[in-house]
């Protein structure tokens, strides 16, 4: 199986600040979330793998190409949408995307044709002849996405793509990202500090903190099942039921409309049914508790 990205003992410093601290990571193809708090090294990692900045030490590959020697080859097969608002000024949308294609090496004719296609795809077809400075924030994000995929890259890198977007725009970007990664066979590196966004798009996650790898793996595997913890919903009021469980020595905690129950060692969840029958309550929902991605993330960065 070809690896998407491999880093081996990569160190990158900016003066006294160590942005990547002996980072070693292997990321498989597919939709990968790059998580980390601000200043954790996500953007530095992206710039490193694009060959935009030299590293102090270490080596690595992107799609099998050495990022220290084959930067231009890597950038030919990678599409990148930067975090900041950035525009080619004084052009209309279609020119913007076509120009992005020409800079990668597409012919003018191909770039124009392809620009029309990708603008339709990202939902900017109606705005293609509008000057880009007049676009809204959401439109600019979609424009960046269109210009990143105009040359049909093998790997798409989105750096904080939902920053500053309204909920509807955010959902659109997430749907587009998910569609590209899951239905169009494009590998995706999705950098964000918004956990729901990463969870909505990616199946694999890499967590960075202070330039170090804190956790990595498939999201479903990281969200481990807790055998002794259950989430319970009842038909009626949950407070008396929780009170009853506490009386028999169990831990029961109300969270929104869910009762989180921790069963002591050696006891069976069958007791829950017994207690419910005693209290004349009807259990509507019962399942083992899983860690949320937020818990995984918080545990990793602790």
């Amino acid at each position, binding site marked *: 199986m070809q690896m998407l990205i491999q880093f081996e003992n990569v160190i990158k410093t900016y003066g006294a600040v160590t942005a990547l601290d002996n980072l070693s990571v292997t990321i498989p193809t597919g939709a990968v979330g790059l998580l980390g708090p601000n200043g954790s090294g996500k953007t530095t990692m992206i710039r490193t793998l*694009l060959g935009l*900045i030299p590293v102090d030490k270490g080596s690595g590959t992107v799609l099998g190409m050495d990022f220290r020697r084959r930067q231009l080859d890597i950038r030919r097969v990678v599409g990148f949408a930067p975090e900041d608002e950035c*525009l080619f000024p004084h052009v209309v949308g279609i020119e913007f995307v076509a120009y992005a294609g020409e800079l990668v090496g597409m012919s*003018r004719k191909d770039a124009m044709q392809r620009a029309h296609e990708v603008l339709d795809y990202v939902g900017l077809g109606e705005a293609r002849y509008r000057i880009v400075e007049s676009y809204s924030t959401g439109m600019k994000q979609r424009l960046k996405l269109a210009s990143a995929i105009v040359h049909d890259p093998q790997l798409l890198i989105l750096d904080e793509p939902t920053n500053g977007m309204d909920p509807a725009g955010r959902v659109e970007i997430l749907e587009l990202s998910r569609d590209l990664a899951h239905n*169009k066979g494009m590998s995706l590196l999705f950098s964000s500090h918004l956990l729901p966004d990463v969870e909505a798009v990616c199946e694999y996650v890499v967590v960075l903190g202070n330039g170090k790898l804190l956790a990595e793996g498939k999201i479903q595997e990281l969200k481990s099942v807790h055998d002794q913890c259950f989430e319970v919903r009842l038909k009626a009021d949950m407070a008396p039921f929780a009170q009853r469980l506490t009386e028999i020595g169990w831990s029961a905690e109300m969270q929104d409309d869910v009762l989180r129950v921790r069963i002591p060692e050696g006891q069976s969840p069958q007791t829950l049914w017994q207690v419910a029958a005693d209290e004349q309550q009807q259990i509507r929902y019962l399942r083992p508790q899983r860690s949320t991605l937020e818990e995984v993330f918080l545990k990793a960065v602790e």
Partner: protein
Amino acid sequence: MPIFDQGYQHWSGSLSGHAWRWFAITRHGMRVGVRAGKAGRSLRIFLLISWLPALGLAGVLCLWGLLERNSEWAKFLGPMLEFLGPAVVADPTHYRVDVWTLCYHYFLRTELTLSMILVLLVGPNLISQDLRYNALPLYFSRPLRRIDYFAGKLGVIVGFLGMVIIVPSLIAYALGLLFSLDITILRDTLHLLIASVMYGLVIAVSAGLLMLALSTMSRNSRYISLLWLAVWVGSGMVSHVLEQTNVQQQQMRQAWRASQGMPAEEFFSEQLEAAKSNWRPLVSYTANLSRIGQELLGTDAVWLRLSELQTGPQRGLFLLQLMGPQYPWYWSAAVVTGLLVFSACILNFRIKSLDRLK
């Protein structure tokens, strides 16, 4: 199930090699420059104005061709050339190289001034707007090096200046050749064609690189325009003031010598000798470019040849009035080279890779 999926389609075309990637930036820059709103309209109008001197050049070269062939069409040209001496009109073929040289000299001198205005119209936006709209990450995250970016931006200025200097020079040369119907023109004047192309490139690369360097200094293109005016007009004014101070001193000296009854020829020859070490034009950016042009075209030699047609003190006066600065041309070449290096250093310092960008 959709009959035709209008969603994302894969693209199977091929990407070009890396060598001409800068050209995409040049092409885009020229397209945007000509198209963009009021500024684009001003630029288009100015381009048309800049081609007017080329019409003059082509017209004179064609008429000279007709004059060489004793055509009735060109008889009216004779009286206009009397200031060069009757011998020139009497034997136009003999003075072909001199006249062609002077035609190119005046054409390129005019275009030098127009080029400065053209650079003012085209250049300030080139990098400053990329900085303002944070476009550098979009460039450098694609398979481009900084040198490609600079070459592409420089290409925009070189392209526009080439359109008003080099292309008209070539067309005028071809027309002059066609109207003379004499293949020996190629032998006599080919060096002029090469010199005008080289001079055009010197102006374009020098002014282009300098403007690019200035364009990195601010995100507001108005300030860049002011900086350019300071370099072009400001340096010219300082040079002019220095020159005028010198001229006044010379005039006072001449008046004193005249009162002493000393011959004018001696004064003129002294002045010509002094002009060889007159450094004041070096202060002016355009005067330096002009001096390099003089050397490339060989204008000084032409004036000296034509001065032999003059007699007595007229010869000295003729040379003093018509010859440009006489200091060694390599002084100007050094100044222009220094500016090129300075511009390259500023570009290198101001436009870093994404390492230094926010």
